[in-house]
């Protein structure tokens, strides 16, 4: 049994983690968010040895998105060494509003963009998403998208807007060729995973582009850490996924 797995079975994680997909903000329509204060979340990050997290507003349906982004800006300003903020875009709003909000957030220190069309009753493959890509490409801002829709659409964006760091926000094998073929496309491990997914993921996808995402404070940390740390992949690849790859992404794109 490998070392990290042995330790995890005792509840121990003794190396620094970098989290590519997380949320703060305290509320969600779907469920009560337990222990949701930002200070409590920082304490939890300390307990689990999470050095930094890319964070986005939790109320992804998009109501009061300006307010949610404002809260994000405040939290990221308070904890600049721990949080890297990606602002929430509500794709139902006109392009001018979106442009204005991205500009405002960028000036306030927000580093990237969060898209989640499906939860806002919008289409993943849509002109509005392309508009966001085109606009932020100019500022070299990264985008984490809940779903890029089809691999064809993602590839079209990657080819056309080359300054963006692209993150596939939830794991799916449909994006594997794009991740493998382009230097600026990363994939988050977060999703419901069928048995053996981590081992297959590491076999089929370049190991320097797979990044652990916890999806806190939506999901339990154990739900996303368990599959990686209990998997049968070598320890050095676990460390890449849980730490090094996201650290490198942040240094390169944020």
């Amino acid at each position, binding site marked *: 049994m490998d070392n990290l797995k042995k330790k*995890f*079975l*005792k*509840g121990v*994680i003794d190396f620094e983690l970098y989290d590519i997909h997380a949320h703060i903000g305290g509320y969600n329509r*779907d*469920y*009560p*968010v*337990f*222990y949701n204060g930002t200070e409590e979340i920082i304490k*939890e990050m300390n*307990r*689990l040895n999470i050095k930094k997290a890319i964070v986005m507003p939790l109320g992804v349906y998009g109501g009061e998105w300006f307010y949610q982004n404002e809260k994000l800006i405040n939290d990221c300003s308070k904890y600049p060494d721990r949080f890297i903020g990606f602002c929430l875009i509500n794709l139902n709003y006109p392009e001018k509003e979106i442009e204005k909000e991205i500009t405002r957030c960028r000036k306030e220190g927000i580093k990237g963009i969060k898209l989640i069309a499906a939860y806002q009753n919008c289409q993943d493959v849509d002109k509005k998403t392309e508009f966001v890509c085109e606009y932020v490409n100019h500022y070299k801002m990264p985008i984490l998208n809940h779903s890029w829709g089809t691999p064809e659409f993602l590839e079209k964006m990657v080819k056309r807007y080359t300054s963006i760091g692209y993150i596939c926000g939830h794991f799916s094998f449909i994006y594997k060729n794009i991740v493998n073929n382009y230097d600026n496309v990363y994939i988050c491990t977060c999703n*419901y*995973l*069928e*048995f*053996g*997914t*981590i081992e297959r993921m590491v076999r089929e996808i370049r190991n320097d582009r797979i990044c652990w995402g916890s999806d*806190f*404070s*939506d*999901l*339990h*940390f*154990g*739900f*996303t*850490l*368990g*599959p*990686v*740390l*209990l*998997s*049968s992949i070598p320890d050095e690849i676990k460390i890449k996924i849980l730490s090094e790859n996201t650290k490198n992404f942040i240094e390169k794109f944020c």
Partner: protein
Amino acid sequence: MEFFDIKAGIGVFSKPTIYTEAEELLKIMENFSIKKSIVYHSLSKEMSPFEGNEMLLRKIKNYKNLIPSFFLLPKNSGDIENFEKYIEKAKNKGVKIFWITYNTFKIPLSHYLYSGTFEILNEFKIPVIIDPNIPYSGLQADSGDWQGIRLICEKYTDFPVIFTEFRTRFHIRIVIDFLKNYKNFYYDIGSCWNYKVVEKLVEITDGENLVIGTNLPFSEPGQSLGMILISDIPENIKRKIAYENIEKWIT
């Protein structure tokens, strides 16, 4: 940390799975520090409870760490002659737990109650797992028939009613109420992936009434086991959820 998994299947399912045999399951269990598993047969879950149940006993008879569980249809369903005798025989054969998967067979949970099914289960004090998910009908969430479960918990207070499903998201608000109000209501924490849910439910229950299921051979076991392993709760409570809470009903 050692685990007692409440939800693992063997057999040939409608869609290919990573393993089918008991021996293969045992290897996976060893790999994930799962000491014991409550096991069901694919045929019971998907098509024919009574034939699948017998097949299960044949397949796992040599393995003491695999605990047999039977799927049930309601009393007087026409599938078997004498429901009461069936339960008695099952108990004598070492069956420790029964499954009620009402949606799979399109029978309201309330019918299990009013047909007298639970009356007999109550007599034998055998725990019941209620799982509302229908095999292969998508990634289902929040499917519990809470009115039916409420009636069962209120009427039969002496044996555990364990609820499990593929995913509880919205319904965690209901689960919390049940855990507060019904001492015989148990919850598979592997069903809910929400942030800090283990910690919150432990705060409510002191770690009682919580158990863990992996959903093998379908799900990655690390998902549910990971939630116990790194929760911010005392070690003795982790052991309760991981093992002891279900063990006390099985042995």
